[in-house]
C-alpha cells in the first residue's frame, strides 16, 4: 500500500519548492470555489431570509425541497450544466464550456441550495426571537431581513464556509464542465483524479493533503476574523 509518510513528505516538498503548476492549480481552485461561494451567498442568503420571514402557501414543501437539494450530486449538476453550456445546448452561444466561468456556475448551482437551506434555518430561529420586537417597531420586511442578516452574520459565515467546503472538495461537476484542461481548468480535485488515474497514488495523496491544508487555511483565516469581530460586537 501507499506510504502516507512519503506522501506527506512529497506534499511538503511540493509546497516548499513553490512548484509553478501547483500554485496555478491552487489559485484556480481558490478562485473558482470562493467565487462560487460568494455567488451562492448572493443568491442563497436573500432566498433563505425570504423563506425564513415570509409566510406563503407551499412554504413547508419548498423547505423540504430546498433541504433535499443540499444533497445534489455534483456529477448530475455537472451534466445538467454541460447540457446547457454545450455548443449544442441552449446557452452554447456563450462559449463558456471548458472555462473557469462554467466551473463557477456549476459549483454555484451545487452550493446555493446549501447556503439557502442552512441560512433559512439560522434566520428562522433568529426571526422567532426578533419578530415581535420588529413588528413593534413597524419595520418594513426589507429592513427586518437586512437586520436579521446582519445580526446572524457570524452564523452565516459558517454557512458560507460549508458551501465553500463542498465546492472546493467536489470533482464531479468541475471535471465535466471544466474538462480538466491543463493550465486552464485544472483544479485540485481534478488534478487528484488525474494523478490517481495515472497510478501516481502518492502524488494524488500529496495533492489531497495540500487541498486539505488549503481548506484548513481558509477556515482558519475566516474563523480568526470572525472571532475577533464577534468579541467586539456580540453578546
Amino acid at each position, binding site marked *: 500500500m501507499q506510504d502516507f509518510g512519503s506522501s506527506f513528505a512529497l506534499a511538503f516538498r511540493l509546497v516548499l519548492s513553490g512548484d509553478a503548476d501547483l500554485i496555478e492549480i491552487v489559485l484556480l481552485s481558490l478562485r473558482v470555489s470562493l467565487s462560487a461561494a460568494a455567488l451562492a451567498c448572493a443568491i442563497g442568503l436573500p432566498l433563505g431570509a425570504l423563506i425564513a420571514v415570509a409566510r406563503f402557501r407551499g412554504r413547508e414543501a419548498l423547505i423540504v425541497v430546498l433541504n433535499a437539494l443540499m444533497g445534489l450530486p455534483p456529477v448530475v449538476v455537472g451534466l445538467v450544466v454541460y447540457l446547457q453550456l454545450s455548443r449544442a445546448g441552449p446557452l452554447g452561444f456563450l462559449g463558456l464550456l471548458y472555462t473557469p466561468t462554467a466551473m463557477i456556475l456549476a459549483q454555484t448551482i451545487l452550493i446555493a441550495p446549501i447556503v439557502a437551506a442552512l441560512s433559512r434555518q439560522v434566520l428562522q430561529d433568529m426571526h422567532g*426571537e*426578533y419578530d*415581535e*420586537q420588529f*413588528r*413593534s*417597531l*413597524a419595520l418594513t420586511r426589507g429592513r427586518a431581513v437586512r*437586520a436579521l442578516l*446582519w*445580526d446572524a452574520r457570524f452564523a452565516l459565515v459558517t454557512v458560507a464556509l460549508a458551501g465553500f467546503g463542498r465546492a472546493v472538495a467536489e470533482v464531479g461537476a468541475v471535471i465535466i464542465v471544466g474538462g480538466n484542461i491543463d493550465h486552464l481548468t485544472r483544479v485540485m480535485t481534478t488534478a487528484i483524479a488525474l494523478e490517481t488515474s495515472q497510478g501516481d497514488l502518492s502524488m494524488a495523496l500529496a495533492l489531497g493533503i495540500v487541498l486539505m491544508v488549503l481548506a484548513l487555511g481558509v477556515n482558519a483565516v475566516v474563523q480568526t476574523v470572525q472571532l475577533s469581530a464577534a468579541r*467586539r*460586537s*456580540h*453578546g
Partner: protein
Amino acid sequence: MAEPPLLPLTLRGVRLSRGGADRLHGVDLDLAPGGCTVVMGPNGAGKSLLLKVLHGLETPGAGRIDWNGQAPGPAVTRRQAMVFQAPVLLRRSVAANLDFVLPRHAQARRDDLLAHVGLSDKAATPARRLSGGEQQRLALARALATEPEILFLDEPTASLDPAACLQIERLVLKARAAGTRIVFVTHNAGQARRLADDVVFLHRGRVVEHSPAARFFPTPATQAAKDHIEGRIVLSH
C-alpha cells in the same frame, strides 16, 4: 405634527381567542390623553394580550378600535412603542441598538438618550452583555428614541431587582412628565400605586374596573380588585 393625535382611544367589544380559548371577551376601554394608566389583574386576565391589541401586534377577532378616528395599522403602531418583559436587543453594541431606530447622523440624540438612561459609559459594549436592568433601560431608551405618542410597558420590571426596578420607574415617570402617554402592565400593587394616574383592572378577559388611582386603591369597586390589591391569590379561571 400634521396628523391628529392618537388619543382619545375608544375600544368596544374587543374579543380575542388563542389556542381555541377566549382570552379577551368583550373589552370596553376609553383612554384619554396624558398621564399613566396602569393595567392590573391576576395572571391570565389578559393584560399582555390587551397591550398587544392596543399596540397592533394582535388582531382581535371582533370589536371596534378607534384611535381618535384612525383604525389600527402600521401607521398607528409606528407612533407607539413597547417595552417587553424580556427585552429583545440586537446582537450589536449598545449604541448600535439605538442607531438602529434613530435617523442617520443622530449621534447627538443617541448620546443624549444613553445619558438619559445612564448607559453613556457602555455605548460600545455588546448589548447582550449588559445586566438585566441595563438591558431593560436600553430597551426603554430605544422605545423613547422613536418619540412615541404612547409608550406601552409589559411588566418591564418583573425579573429585575428592586434597585433596577426603581430606575425604570423613574425613567417612566420622566417620560410621562415629558408628555408621553404611558400604559403600564404590572401585577405589583406597590409599583402600581407609585406610577398610576388611573387603573384598568382586568379580570377573566374583561375590564371590570377603570377608575382614577386615588379612588381605585382605597375603594376598589369589585371583590376581585380588592383581593388583588391586598395580595390575596386569585385564580382567574
